[in-house]
């Protein structure tokens, strides 16, 4: 059995102009695919050959962890985007957001700030902790909060490859664009 690149739930140009077709072509078609291919090459003949990605994230290190986590992270990222995104959460998720951050707007500000200040490559996460409460976390490179027992419900890629073709050094502009295509319906379901 080998790991497969999941199909995108939309066309490569569907998120434009917020995220361009060119960016998706490379980000999904090259980066995400390369992580899958490298992972398949690395796990061959190891204890992780038939493992699932969560197990790899929890137990592996080095190249197997990096590529396995990057496969999971990118799938989780791309799945939550949509050309017909629901702009705001409702119901239980909204209540939880308001409880932790005060308001939805404050959450957007905090999450955006975490994205803008993550130095180097990485991911910003909204997770549920063991008490069921929400937290924002920054993770360098391939880091994934599953490793530390958290339940991710939302992630934003802030590797430069996620936005450089569209907004270059202006990461905050990418973060604004990200929220225009982030589908809160999917985040509600995850929550």
């Amino acid at each position, binding site marked *: 059995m080998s790991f497969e690149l999941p199909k995108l739930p939309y066309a490569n140009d569907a998120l434009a102009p917020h995220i361009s077709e060119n960016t998706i072509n*490379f980000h999904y078609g*090259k*980066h995400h695919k*390369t992580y899958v291919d490298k992972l398949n090459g690395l796990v061959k003949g190891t204890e992780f050959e038939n493992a699932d990605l969560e197990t790899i994230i929890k137990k592996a290190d080095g190249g197997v962890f*990096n590529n396995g986590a990057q496969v999971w992270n990118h799938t989780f990222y791309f799945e939550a985007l949509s050309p017909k995104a629901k702009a705001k959460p409702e119901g239980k998720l909204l209540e939880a957001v308001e409880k932790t951050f005060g308001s939805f707007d404050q959450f957007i500000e905090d999450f955006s700030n975490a994205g803008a200040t993550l*130095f*180097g*490559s*990485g991911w910003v996460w909204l997770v549920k902790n063991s008490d069921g409460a929400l937290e924002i976390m920054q993770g*360098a*490179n*391939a880091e994934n909060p599953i490793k530390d027992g958290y339940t991710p419900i939302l992630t934003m890629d802030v*590797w*430069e*490859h996620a936005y*450089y*073709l569209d907004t*270059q*050094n202006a990461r905050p502009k990418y973060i604004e664009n990200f929220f225009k295509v982030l589908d809160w319906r999917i985040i509600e379901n995850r929550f």
Partner: protein
Amino acid sequence: MSFKLPDLPYDFGALEPHIDAKTMEIHHDKHHGGYTTKLNAAVETENISSSNIEEILANVSKYSTDVRNNGGGYYNHNLFWEILNPNGGGNPTGDLGKAIESTFGSYEKFKDEFSKAAASRFGSGWAWLVNENGKLKIGSTANQDSPLMDISDFKGKPIIGLDVWEHAYYLKYQNRRPEYIEAFFNIINWEKANELFKA
């Protein structure tokens, strides 16, 4: 007293086709410019009296993450622009050329080892050729860490540094970092590298 963003020693387009003009402009003006501004802000906030960036990096464990990140970014890019030249490339000459041959066996072997260090740095960072007490070493650092930093686990005096942050190559090479690394060897300023080696 504040640190100044140095002018590029050549035009934005001078390193074409190896590095494109748009990349050079954004890289120098926005990225390097940003590190410079933020370094100056951090130096002021933390009342750092030294105006010598190498000295600050050598004691970086005493300062904040802002100094580490932006001081490293400031110094590393200063070096990067200097060790590039439109008329560069070819085989290293002089004392450095000899030292490279005796340390790595040949220029080709040096090139392979340096390329591997640059390609295998996961995430953002730099690949380096450094001089550690007269001995040449190849390695890499994460993000803007520099071999001059007391906290770095790869130490030495930088002779060549290659920026492998995606911003250094994404507009032209996208996911193909190895092509960017290969192109770098066509524009290395070996004369400057020799000076740094002998200094």
